[in-house]
């Protein structure tokens, strides 16, 4: 079987090539079929491998295949190779599974778009790249996927390129991602250079892992930090998150697939993939957890005041990604991936639901113009509700298990901390609040749309609702693969992944917590692993979520005017939040304008002012000198004679006096 793992990436590639090269001459339906089937085929392969894996003992669940030598230069020996193990398989399943559903959904959603074929071409390419990212057996192949998904994201965000905002958003996404990639690249370099001393030249995960402990710890910290920069860019964390809300310019299924379910989680995946390195760098872990929780909190606070249905979801995504980073930051890699998976279900669903709403509302995205859609879009409503409950962390739904796992780990893991837990818990409550604010404003109350729009509101076609339902189902039950021990489960999910994860205790074992930060950190960390405490905390978080939901209910259903009153009372704060803390503006001022100003300086001052002036100045000086000499050459023969005399005077003086000294 191992020799067939390349089939996973082959199918989407084929789909992409067929649609890309022949799409112009193909009927739309065929293109959609090709696209969907190629993803499904890939899913099928993944699933079959999964089944095969289940039959194998955990230690043997690795398929590693070098396909051909790729970059071979001196001691750098990088092959184009794939690796399927538990982690990548989970990712494959999510990508192809959710991807397939979204493909199907898209066939309905994009039905009328003139760029239908192009859309599916991009989408297939995206899936291919994403699969490459998760199945690459070395850092460089991963990087191919890493940049490739960025490209597809760019293409798909800017899918409606006639809109300037879409084109801009695409570009912004790509460039911000590139900043992250810059870190990623440097991380690769540093890692390679450090490993080169140890004789490891392939950049393969399987070869890096055993050598990781031999590296200089300080270097590992740097390496992991640099990689984390990449993750920050890709997964939209502070300070590089600004592209994601803008990315909502793309078609909604794209937002669902790329900007919720899969691509943005690549950062988390990468950190988990490299967990053997991260576990060696507690300082980095601390940074990750901190960035994660801050992002989670920060984005959630923005999400509270957004009125664009997709923007709310976007900030929610950022916030949830923050959660995942908290998880990996405290060393709970499995929890991170777990949340990644459940998030893929419910957030994918939320976006698809939002898409359905937008579809119904003839493109309207402002929730203030919606309301009361519950009746008209029943399936959408129900699935949306499930997703909301899931994300809010209501027990029994998928989100509950994963989120709670993270909260607990944040509290209890050696790398965790009470403050992190606290912030995360508050964020969870805020999440519940804004999600239900969204739900209530959209689906409950009076419909505030114009009459014409109202007239057209209809439930989406089955092509769209079936994926909704499937995802709804997954959101409901997806969490049961990882029921924590405390609730009587055995957390199969973690177990499935565990062969790949560095043991939690490795930190202590490696015995290098000399770092000041991590020591101070460890001192305040709650270490006891007590069931009672875990349950208590769990209950607390559920309560918080419920409070959030209630608050939303109170403000937006029971007392609809109250929210604006509050907003008016704290108008400064409200404006701040509504405008996303003006981060975009600040970035624009500092970076965009800064670069432009620098550019103007270079162009006007350096290039024209100094270099060109010097170059042209040399020419004009020569000309001026020539003019000067020319003036002497006035045409008077006696002047010429005098020239001879003058020359003679000088020569005479020179020749007679020169021998004297």
């Amino acid at each position: 079987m191992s020799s067939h793992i390349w089939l996973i990436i082959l199918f989407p590639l084929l789909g992409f090539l067929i649609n890309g090269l022949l799409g112009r001459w193909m009927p739309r339906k065929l293109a959609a079929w090709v696209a969907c089937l190629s993803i499904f085929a890939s899913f099928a392969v993944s699933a079959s491998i999964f089944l095969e894996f289940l039959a194998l003992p955990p230690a043997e669940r690795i398929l590693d295949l070098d396909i051909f030598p790729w970059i071979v230069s001196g001691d750098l020996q990088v092959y184009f190779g794939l690796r399927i193990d538990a982690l990548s398989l989970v990712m494959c399943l999510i990508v192809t599974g959710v991807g397939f559903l979204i493909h199907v959904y898209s066939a309905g959603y994009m039905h009328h778009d003139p760029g239908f074929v192009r859309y599916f071409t991009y989408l297939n390419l995206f899936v291919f790249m994403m699969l490459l990212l998760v199945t690459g057996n070395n850092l460089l192949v991963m990087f191919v996927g890493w940049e490739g998904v960025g490209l597809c994201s760019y293409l798909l965000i800017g899918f409606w390129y006639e809109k300037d905002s879409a084109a801009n958003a695409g570009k912004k996404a790509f460039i911000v991602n590139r900043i992250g990639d810059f870190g990623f690249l440097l991380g690769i370099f540093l890692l390679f250079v450090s490993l080169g001393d140890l004789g490891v030249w392939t950049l393969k995960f399987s070869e890096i892992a055993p050598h990781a402990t031999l590296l200089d710890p300080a270097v590992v910290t740097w390496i992991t930090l640099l990689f984390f920069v990449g993750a920050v860019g890709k997964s939209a964390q502070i300070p590089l998150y600004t592209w994601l809300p803008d990315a909502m310019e793309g078609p909604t299924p794209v937002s669902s697939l790329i900007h919720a379910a899969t691509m943005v989680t690549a950062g988390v995946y990468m950190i988990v993939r490299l967990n053997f390195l991260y576990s060696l760098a507690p300082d980095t872990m601390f940074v990750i957890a901190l960035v994660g929780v801050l992002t989670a909190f920060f984005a959630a606070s923005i999400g509270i005041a957004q009125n664009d249905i997709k923007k709310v979801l976007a900030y929610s995504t950022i916030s949830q990604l923050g959660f995942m980073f908290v998880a990996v930051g405290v060393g709970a890699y499995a929890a991170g991936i777990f949340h990644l998976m459940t998030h893929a279900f419910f957030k994918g669903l939320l976006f698809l639901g939002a898409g359905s709403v937008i579809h119904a509302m003839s493109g309207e995205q402002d929730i203030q113009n919606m309301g009361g859609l519950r009746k008209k879009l029943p399936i959408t409503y129900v699935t949306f509700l499930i997703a909301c409950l899931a994300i809010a962390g209501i027990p029994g739904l998928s989100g509950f298990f994963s989120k709670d796992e993270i909260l607990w780990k944040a509290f209890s893991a050696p790398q965790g901390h009470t403050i992190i837990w606290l912030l995360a818990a508050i964020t969870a409550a805020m999440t519940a609040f804004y999600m239900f604010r969204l739900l209530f404003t959209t689906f409950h109350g009076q419909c505030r749309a114009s009459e014409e729009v109202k007239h057209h509101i209809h439930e989406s076609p089955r092509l769209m609702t079936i994926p909704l339902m499937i995802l709804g189902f997954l959101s409901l039950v997806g969490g049961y693969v990882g029921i924590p021990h405390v609730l009587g489960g055995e957390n199969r999910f973690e177990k499935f992944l565990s062969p790949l994860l560095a043991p939690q205790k490795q930190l202590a074992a490696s015995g290098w917590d000399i770092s000041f930060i991590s020591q101070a950190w460890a001192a305040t960390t709650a270490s006891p692993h007590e069931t009672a405490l875990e349950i208590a905390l769990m209950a607390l978080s559920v309560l918080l979520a419920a409070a959030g939901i209630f608050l939303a209910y109170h403000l937006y259903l029971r007392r609809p005017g109250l929210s604006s009153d509050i907003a008016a009372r704290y108008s400064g704060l409200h404006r701040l939040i509504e405008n996303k803390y003006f981060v975009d503006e600040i970035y624009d001022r500092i970076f965009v304008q800064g670069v432009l100003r620098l550019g103007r300086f270079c162009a006007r001052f350096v290039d024209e002012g100094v270099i060109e002036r010097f170059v042209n100045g040399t020419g004009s000086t020569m000309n001026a000198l020539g003019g000067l000499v020319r003036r002497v050459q006035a045409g008077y023969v006696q002047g010429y004679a005098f020239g001879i005399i003058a020359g003679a005077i000088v020569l005479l003086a020179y020749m007679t006096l020169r021998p004297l000294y």
Partner: protein
Amino acid sequence: MLQDIPPHLYFLLSGILFTIGAIGAITRRNAIIVFLCIELMLNAVNITFITAGNLYNSLDGAIFVFFIMTVAAVEAAVGLAIFIMLFRLKDTINVDEINLLKG
């Protein structure tokens, strides 16, 4: 008792005449006078030749002077022809007015 006239004086005389000729050649406006000045310079040179020949008991200097005279004659012929041609064409032989070519 005086020594015989030292050659230095002859040379000095030659230098004086040469300078006078040179000054004349660059200040006078009439081309013919300029030419006369040049002839004077040639004569100054001749004095040097003759002096040196006398000094070293050599006749080569005198021979050279003879050839210089020949050349001077030829130059005079051709030069004057040029002046006449110029005069016919431009009605002047003032060197200051002959500066079409310049720059």
